[in-house]
């Protein structure tokens, strides 16, 4: 009951925020220099004024801004995100076609970084001042500090070019015509390099945070109580220290999860992954404003969604938070 109320009130707020974001993005993109009609016409090889005016009229670009905005917002209310004139397809279709690839990549990276980060962090916390603990922290610092695209390129050089273990780009082997399990294996193979690359940075952050948080939790009074009960070290680490240490991690994980649509541009570009990130990059270059706005909308919606999810998870994890919105 409490959760139903909470979710309801959060969703109402989310709709308001989304609405404001739509307006903000729309106005912002209008302010960008460059006339989409001129670019379209230029690419078509025509420069005469009449053709330009025709284009403007066809796309509604001759209307005042508030009218254009009204058309756009009322369109979104019916899930119509407009038409991409560059790609000659509805924006929604374009995004939905690319979304699964991106979510597969970012979702895998999310699970990978969270799981391995917490594991490495707990190991490091249990081995403070030991060489193995220091090694974990040194690696974490290295991944934290190295630029993502460079890691990606080096991974391609090592694993694809030199060792020839993994494919260097794409999501599946073109023309192989795999189906079923073979297809899944093929995609899995293509997924390893980009997902790992994307995961490394956050994994490093989780490792560092888990370790710091666990060291802090291990100095709390309830840990002494647990030891006074005669519990074994492993149980104390897992049940008392780690559980309390995970609370700040939840906040961070929520942040990372919110970036799942828009956060993989670099990785998708390097590995030629057919996802939203590349779509956005192309739309940007081609001044495909409708498509760009559509992508912005989806990534904003996902951020808001994961904010709500984070709050709910936090409430489940920490019984002390019972105050309503």
């Amino acid at each position, binding site marked *: 009951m409490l959760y139903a109320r909470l979710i309801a009130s959060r969703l109402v707020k989310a709709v308001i925020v989304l609405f404001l974001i739509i307006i903000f993005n729309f106005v912002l993109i209008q302010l960008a220099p460059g006339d989409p009609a001129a670019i379209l016409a230029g690419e078509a090889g025509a420069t005469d004024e009449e053709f330009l005016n025709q284009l403007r009229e066809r796309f509604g670009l001759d209307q005042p801004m508030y009218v254009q905005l009204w058309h756009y917002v009322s369109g979104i209310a019916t899930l119509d995100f407009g038409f991409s004139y560059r790609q000659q397809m509805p924006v929604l279709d374009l995004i939905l076609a690319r979304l699964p690839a991106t979510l597969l990549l970012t979702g895998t990276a999310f699970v990978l970084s969270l799981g391995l980060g917490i594991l490495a962090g707990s190991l490091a916390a249990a081995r403070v001042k030991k060489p193995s603990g220091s090694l974990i922290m040194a690696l974490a610092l290295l991944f934290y500090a190295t630029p993502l695209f460079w890691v990606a390129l080096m991974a391609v050089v090592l694993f694809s070019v030199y060792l020839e273990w993994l494919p260097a780009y794409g999501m599946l082997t073109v023309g192989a015509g795999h189906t079923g399990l073979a297809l899944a294996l093929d995609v899995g193979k293509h997924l390893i390099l980009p997902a790992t690359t994307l995961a490394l940075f956050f994994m490093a952050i989780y490792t560092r945070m888990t370790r710091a948080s666990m060291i802090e939790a291990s100095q709390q*009074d309830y840990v002494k109580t647990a030891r*006074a009960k005669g*519990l074994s070290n492993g149980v104390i680490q897992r049940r008392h220290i780690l559980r309390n240490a995970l609370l700040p991690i939840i906040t961070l994980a929520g942040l990372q999860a919110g970036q799942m649509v828009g956060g993989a541009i670099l990785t998708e570009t390097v590995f030629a992954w057919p996802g939203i990130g590349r779509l956005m990059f192309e739309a940007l270059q081609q001044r495909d404003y409708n498509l760009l706005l559509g992508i912005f909308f989806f990534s904003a919606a996902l951020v808001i969604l994961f904010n709500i999810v984070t709050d709910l998870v936090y409430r489940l994890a920490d*019984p002390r938070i019972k*105050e309503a919105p």
Partner: protein
Amino acid sequence: MTETVLSIRDLTLALPKGADRAFAVEHVSYDVSEGEILCVVGESGSGKSMAANAVMGLLPKGVHATGGEIWFGGQNLLTLDERAHRSLRGLRIGMIFQEPMTALNPLMRVGAQIAEVFEAHGRHTPKERQARALALLEEVGIPQPERAIRAYPFQLSGGQRQRVMIAMALALEPELLIADEPTTALDVTTQAQILKLIRDLQQRRGMAVMFITHDFGVVAEVATRVCVMREGEIVELGEAREVLDHPRHDYTRALIDAIPNDAVPNRHHAAEAQPLLEVRHLDKVFRSRGGMLKPSREVHALDDISFTLSRGETLGIVGESGSGKSTLGRCVVRLERPDSGQLLLDGVDFTTLKGETLRRGRRRVQMIFQDPYASLNPRTRVGLAIAQGPIANGVPRDQALAKADELLELVGLGGVADRFPHEFSGGQRQRIGIARALALEPELIVADEAVSALDVSIQAQILELLERLQQTFSLSLLFITHDLRVAAQICDRLIVMQHGRIVEHGTAEAIFRTPRAAYTRELLEAIPGRDAVLASA
């Protein structure tokens, strides 16, 4: 013939290099026998908890035994490996700690935390463990044990949490219970209940109890034998009655004398026609912020509070946690704004002042805070910390710093203005806090639990200092405390508060000799060691 359960022989524990002294405890020997409560008494830093930690195998990092033996159940605990030591903890030795607020895991239900004790020693099935946890909660007198077993610690009061701790410590019926300041953080009436519970359980089960405390009142209440410690050494060891009535060592005598006693000084301050502070019908309600869909909750922190305070008078506000006494203090210094009512300072309503006039008015009312550790900025030199108030009020910096030096001298800390707070002890920091309050030459000082965090001997010194300063500057003092005896020492008049209301109001003597309200009588009766101290007085 009672059997010796624990025998500490010539124990020496070394502190890490760079500590105040080389040894936490030095050549300490004592026994704890079946069916007795041995109280280990000392002030902070006396090493009174260290031997207990060694018995548990829970010594802080860097502290280690360099000599002696701890005999328990036919084994020397100092030579046990971690695994063998762990098998004793919780099973044959139970322990409870000072801070019930932090000693329980905030994310686990109470029942699960008790059941863990059985799990740690491989006893019973999960279902039986829950049943036993319930029985234990009943035994330690938790109201509604069926609900409490499913509660999280934050849903219980401090006293209830301490009962849960006791239930965990006693789950496997240990032969030895170590209680490390188990009632220090509790209200006085709760403390009385917990002490009684520990005594009852100890008698019912015939356990040996090692009870660590700083409070001789508590000693008088529970001890069979007493071990007084000072700077890592035993000063006095003997039967409780003997030590309390005929302390042989000067230090023991000083500690016993430092306990504020019931011999209330008969002080009376002539009321003036125009009091400095007049509080009329003060009201304050705290509302928890309700959301769009959630009703708000209200707590009446101040309910129709009225009193007066004359120049040079000391008025004590006494109450337990949640009585509204601190809210009252915060309203008087305008850190909090009352919902309605008036606070007349020299006839001017302090509650309606705003902006610049309020800023200037603040100078006249200053506050001394409870926690001398948290109330000073750790990165500000103490001289500057004292001078900041005057500087903000337009006094030239040099002049303000010179004044800070004088004030430090006045509170007995000359020539330390350029040190940082961490270089001082708790008592010294409280002196700095007093100097800071005096820097603005106030007419009224609100002292909120100003001596509660201090050892008794330091407490006595600070009270003396406050009294001297009050007379020198003819200050009015609003002294907020949970401790009736401390209040009686220093206050001309007392107000007893409960649930935001004044339940009794009168001279300190009248309240002690002839308390009228039932709640005041309850508070007086709950003071530990009252009968014993009275008997010896």
